[in-house]
């Protein structure tokens, strides 16, 4: 059986595309919810990269790392979302341009 193999560079290009889409979203969008979603996007791009390299280098360490990242990401989004709710309750907005109380 000659299964067609996906070339690693295709996967990696895909990963970096997703990563930079996420980064662009973080930089450009003003809604905190969207920013958090974009951060998740970046994290998953990294996860995919790790899995790819794990396959290429035949090292399970990369896949191990992915699990940690998933756990941390889950926690992060839980905290992030609750922060968003808290921010919305106090300030009645989730727009980052209007949340600038840390200005020096």
């Amino acid at each position, binding site marked *: 059986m000659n299964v067609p193999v996906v070339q690693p560079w295709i996967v990696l290009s895909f990963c970096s595309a997703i990563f930079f889409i996420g*980064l662009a979203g*973080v*930089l*450009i969008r*003003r809604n905190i919810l969207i*920013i958090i979603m974009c951060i998740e996007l970046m994290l998953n791009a990294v996860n995919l990269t790790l899995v790819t390299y794990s396959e290429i280098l035949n090292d399970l360490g990369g896949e191990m790392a992915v699990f940690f990242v998933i756990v941390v990401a889950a926690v992060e989004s839980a905290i992030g979302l609750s922060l968003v709710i808290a921010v919305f309750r106090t300030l009645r907005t989730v727009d*980052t*341009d209007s*949340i*600038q*109380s*840390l*200005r*020096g």
Partner: protein
Amino acid sequence: MLSLIVLLPLLGFLANGFWYMSQLKTEHKAPALQVGGLATGAIGGSFVIGLICFFRLLAMEPEHRVIEQTLFSWIFIDGLHLDFAFRLDALNSLFVLVITGVGTLIHLYSIGYMSHDASPGKFFAYLNLFCACMLVLVLGASLPVLFLGWEGVGLCSYLLISFWYTDDDKASAGKKAFIVNRVGDFGFLLGMFLIFTTFGTLDFTQLKMVVMNGALSPAQLAAVTSICLLLFVGCMGKSAQIPLYVWLPDAMAGPTPVSALIHAATMVTSGIYLVSRLNFLYTLSPDAMLFVAMIGALTALFAASIAIAQNDIKKVLAYSTVSQLGYMFLACGVGAYVSGVFHVITHAFFKALLFLGAGSVIHGMHEEQDIQKMGGLRSKMPRTFLVFAAGWLAICGIPPFSGFFSKDEILWQAFSSSRSELWLWLLGVVTALMTAFYMSRLFILTFLGEGRWKSHGHAKHDKHHDNHAPHDHGHAPKDAHAHHGGGEPHESPWIMVGPLVALAVLSLIGGFIGIPHMSWLEHWLEPIIPGFAPIKDGVHHETEWVLMGFSVLVALIGMGGAFFIYGNRARTESLQNSLAGFLKTLENKWYVDEIYDAAIVRPLRAVSVFLWKKIDVSIIDRTVLGFGSVSEMSGGVLRESQTGSTQIYIVTFAIGLLVIVGYALYGLV
């Protein structure tokens, strides 16, 4: 046993102190009879225990007359192991008896004297604390324990001088005493450190063993002179010698029993105690001894000259005390430590008597202290007159009163000792003449002649208070006996006269412990103080009897001179007018306070003001404030970067990350 001697007054202090504090908020204060009774009981019990210990010493072999008690290990560090220990021996047993004995009498007297005071509880608490500290001072087996008591009595002295602290003059008199004593204490501390580095021990017995047994190296011998001089600086402060004597006359601002107990009988003699305790060190250094004798003789003469022209009854006695302390140091300096200690004891008797008698006069005269406004009190206060006469004869040196024996022995030693110089003896004789003169002047103006108080109404009395020189602090508070009002002088109650009678008896017979050539005292102190210095070549023992007659003659001349001048009012006034300028100088104490003010206080103040205005405010403060404003300015600039906009932070972060990753991949291109 020994610790009980200290503990009883300490407990009395605590009891009276807490009692007083518990009544701070209430109107009712415990009467003097109750608090005074408690305090007197405490010190009286201490006296009884002191007596028991003394008799136990008497029963021992002369060489082994020591009772020792170690309470706890005080300092335990590398190279220094110090116990908190008391040691009673022949020398300090005498001091213990004088402190507790005379102390008990003075406590008793104070019950009467302080009966109208607003806070007798505080007074008796302090008085008991003083006794406890003084007993620690003399009982301490090592220098640090002694120093603990030394500082403690200084504190109590300060507290009691400024007892009536609402009066500004009295409060500053207390401060003066404390500060001047600090100068002396500095010398004491340095001396103590030097002893430790030189001999490696601070315990008196061990120190004596090291000094007496071991052959001292030249370096150690050289250090001995410095040690003796440094410790003597401490004595100058505590025992009021030139140049640090200035605090003692001002200390008369305290209540009169305080002057009697602290500033005449006990605390001021601790310098003599220290020197005679360390006599084995002083004997090694002829230079230091000569210095001690010189300072002593000069102080004796100088203070006596001031006493001649003072008009405040307590000031006369204060300068007299300074002068007598000078005598004691003269004795120590010529190697006659025994005579110094002897004079401490007799002086404690007759000077406490004189001070308490003066207190009785002040009490009876409704707080009048100016002897020019007294006179004729013999008939008004017959009992005080009689006991005061005993003290007067004792200090003038009329046999068989105690002062004669001790003073004569000092003069004989100053004349005959191989360590003495002739001029020291001459100073001593002139001082004896002056002492007899000014004490007789005091006695005549106070008790004999016409009563000058009759013509002085109360209005003038108040004016007199205002006219006094600014340095004159010797007045009891005006409110203390306010309910007496003016009027006839009256005799004091028996609770005050009783202790006076006891002291008068002691002043009369106290000298018999040191009769020349069969001196019990000399024999008793022999294990601690090994005899007198050898007498000079060419001086015969028969001379002693001649000199004895001579010193009585000198005393009689002094007394006669005083009677000649002050017995006749017209003659007094004409003499006072013709010598007005000189007397003014004497009355103003040779302007020593003014000289100190100009030479030390003002320059010190100027330096302090310079350091404050120039160094502190314009340099140090500006530097510190400069740091502050630099931070503020840089903060103002940097705060602009904190926009609070999340996106800008993230962009910055992303760019930074790119730079770092780029550097990691390609290095510095």
